[in-house]
């Protein structure tokens, strides 16, 4: 039985973290701008794109990745792999589900534990949290895809004696 190398797992995990974080940055930017548009600010497409790019390149990336995405995906993927092995299910199902549910818990949990009233201000709106969490599904699917060749044999049915 072969398994993906640790290096490949680490790279795939980092890719998943980056994708989840960029998705979250983009989503919270749009919620913030929509709130400002609601109180009279003119928000056009170029402002949306420019602000999104600034958020992606700003300190939001390490904050969201470090406090929320990395620990959440780490726990979610470990639990997903355990379920795959325990009940022989599909990684395409358990990993994305774990990532989404993990972020739905992780974002409010870190908001609650943070010494400030709310770490991610845009997540005042529950819809923002849900859509930010949805990015975890895409990232988890990419994680599974990147490691799929090595994993095919991990989940192969064991021959009966």
């Amino acid at each position: 039985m072969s398994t993906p190398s640790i290096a490949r797992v680490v790279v795939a995990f980092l890719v998943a973290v980056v994708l989840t974080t960029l998705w979250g940055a983009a989503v919270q930017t749009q919620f913030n701008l929509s709130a400002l548009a609601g109180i009279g600010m003119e928000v056009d497409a170029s402002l949306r794109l420019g602000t999104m790019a600034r958020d992606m390149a700003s300190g939001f990336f390490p904050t969201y990745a470090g406090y929320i995405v990395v620990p959440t995906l780490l726990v979610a993927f470990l639990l997903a792999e355990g379920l795959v092995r325990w009940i022989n299910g599909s990684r395409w199902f358990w990993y994305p589900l774990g990532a989404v549910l993990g972020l739905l818990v992780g974002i409010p949990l870190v908001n609650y534990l943070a010494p400030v009233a709310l770490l991610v201000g845009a997540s005042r709106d529950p819809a923002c949290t849900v859509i930010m969490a949805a990015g975890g599904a895409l990232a988890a699917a990419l994680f599974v895809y990147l490691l799929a060749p090595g994993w095919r044999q991990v989940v192969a049915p064991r021959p009966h004696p």
Partner: protein
Amino acid sequence: MKLSSIPAFVLFMLAGLSGAAANSYTVENVAGGLEHPWSVAFLDDDRMLVTERPGRLRLIDRNGLRDEPVAGLPPVFSSGQAGLFDVLPARDFQASGILFISFAHGDDDANHVRIIRARFDGDRLHDVHPIFTAQPAKSGDAHYGGRMAWASDGSLLMGTGDGFYFRELPQQLDNHHGKIIRILDDGSVPPDNPFVTREGALPEIYSYGHRNVQAIVVDAAGGRVYAHEHGPRGGDELNSIEAGGNYGWPLITYGRDYSRALITPFTEQPGLKQPLLHWTPSIAPGGMALYQGDHGPWRNSLFVAAMAEKSLRRVALGADGLPGEQEVMLKELDQRVRDVRSPPGRSAVYVVTDEASGSVLRIRPTDTSVAPVASIAGGQP
């Protein structure tokens, strides 16, 4: 002096002595053992009142801090940043005994910042009744403002907060959140308030677009009303308040979300007031006082309590009333400073420290020849 307060007294005296050589001031303990004191008010030469955020009003007189809190205070919603805030004697307090007290009223699901008017007989409050309650009720326990000041014309100013979760409300005039309100001492609305004739606007609003106003100082001689407010991550602002002014939150800010995301892409926009200065990174300003004593180097200065920075800042004002150099004081104490007051005719300023066992401290100048020590970071747009 109580036995339990001796260690604190020694600590502060040592801090004051060690600070004297480098900082040209001494620190003396006036009263200790106060639970998160929020505000201090001088009633006369011998007495001062201190609010404790959990909901107690304490009297300090010639004998020190009275053990029993002042009776007669209504129930206070105490949670997080909510609690008992400011106490402000009436301008004719010596004759009337009237106090104005601000606090959080309600519960976690529905609460407001409220001002009550009451008569203090030296022991307890009488004739207590509310004269202002911010509308509408909000949930949560953050961002109330609550600091009050007398305007030059005898009207009462108070800053409010945006409730944190409702940061768009300061730009809307149909609510009291994120505003400075102006009322008369019976709670009625001055007829010359800027929005009294605007349909849909609450008539108490004096200025808007504030995040969480923490202090208001009226410089009658200079003709300015100063107010400062907490920014989010950076962007604490010192503003010069004008009737009807929009101070921009959250459309413009020099701060960022706690996650470091942009709250807005803009730091300035047409029609929105710029701060006189902003503190980035945040110092989390508390109370503020215009120095009214006789110590030369401190004249024409604003003193700003700072909680996150754990300091007292002296902001020198120019002849035009604009802020200049800043001096950072009290860093050696390593305590959150919540309020600062400068009683007329005294060279000392008084601060309260926002600690579980907080204190009232007297800061006396010792050197009349010292100019501002350093120019400190903090942008002036």
